[in-house]
């Protein structure tokens, strides 16, 4: 299951994670974000143990959204060993997202 991440837990959950982390920047009012949620749940299941899926609510975590210059949601970031590796903007099918992220 995707984990909810806040400014306080971002370092531990994302930057210090031993496995790559997909971070979904989303909001409740964003319809495409809501439609992306089941896609990310499936990815979390498919890559269980190999990739972590995290979610950042941009309304509650404005600091993180600013820090990563999120200008359109949904935006999905991929982190590996604490480094930002990839960024994908917009709603898409699971297979397209997996490919674009390079998983």
């Amino acid at each position, binding site marked *: 299951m995707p984990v909810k991440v806040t400014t306080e837990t971002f370092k531990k959950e994302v930057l210090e994670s031993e496995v790559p982390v997909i971070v979904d920047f989303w909001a409740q009012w964003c319809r495409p974000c809501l*439609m992306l949620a089941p896609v990310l749940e499936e990815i979390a299941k498919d890559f269980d143990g190999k990739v972590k899926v995290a979610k950042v609510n941009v309304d509650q975590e404005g600091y993180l959204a600013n820090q990563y210059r999120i200008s359109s949601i949904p935006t999905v970031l991929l982190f590996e060993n604490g480094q930002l590796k990839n960024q994908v903007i*917009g709603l*898409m*099918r699971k297979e397209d997202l997996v490919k674009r992220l390079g998983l």
Partner: protein
Amino acid sequence: MYDAIVIGGGPAGATAAIYLQRFKKNVLLIMKDSGALGKTAHIDNYYGFVETITGPELLEKGINQAKRLGVEVIKDEVLGIDNFPDFNVKTINGEYQSKTVLLATGKNQVNLRVKGFNDFIGKGISYCAICDGFIYRNKKIGLVGNKEFMLEELEVLKNFSEDITIFTNGMDLSVELHDEKIVTEKITEIKGDEKINQVVTENSEFDVDVLFIAIGSPSASDFALRMGAFLDKNNIVVDESFMTNIPGLFAAGDCIGGLLQIVKATSDGAHAAIAMNKYLKNN
């Protein structure tokens, strides 16, 4: 409450409406203008026409055929679609409710063709105020457009910022605005670094934090984007029954990509109508 609303009166939309009507469904077809087919001068490869037929002639025949069979057809422009719990289709002149919707509006999303535009898509250039407006609370917002679609986006954006500039990009403004800043010059370039920060026009420059695009009329992919339907390179993604990932929302014709031909559009329309009929039975 309609069983089905078909948006678009081209070969895909008209065919679907005819099939749905023959399934005894309560169907409304909403069409704006003649789309891509209306600009086609000679059609020689479509079945059954001995002589060359023009696009506008074929379109008119299709719509008259649908009307003769009992389809309700209205000329109006769809501005938005909501889907909770049923579909609510908002047009310039009214609102219509339906259990299913078929998007068959062709391929017509209008972009700005200026230097720098492609570099900033998703980096401060947005096609969806309801998706991204919130991020730009109290920021400098630019909005490109000149018709009702722009006005719709403007209403959403006003919730987030008072600093909004409308760029008509040289087009005539066909709606009334009151207090907004309006720039009528053509846009010549989009500038920025990591994100957009400036719109350059023929004789001026304007600082912006974001630029929303709502030129002309909303396309099928604009509706899909706002509703959360999957897109692939601006084509709406449908399954084998022509349904999107949103239950009850179907798409057919040029807007789902593939062969951009009348024969494919009519085939899509028939398939979609059959699937919609099945969906209506089961839901």
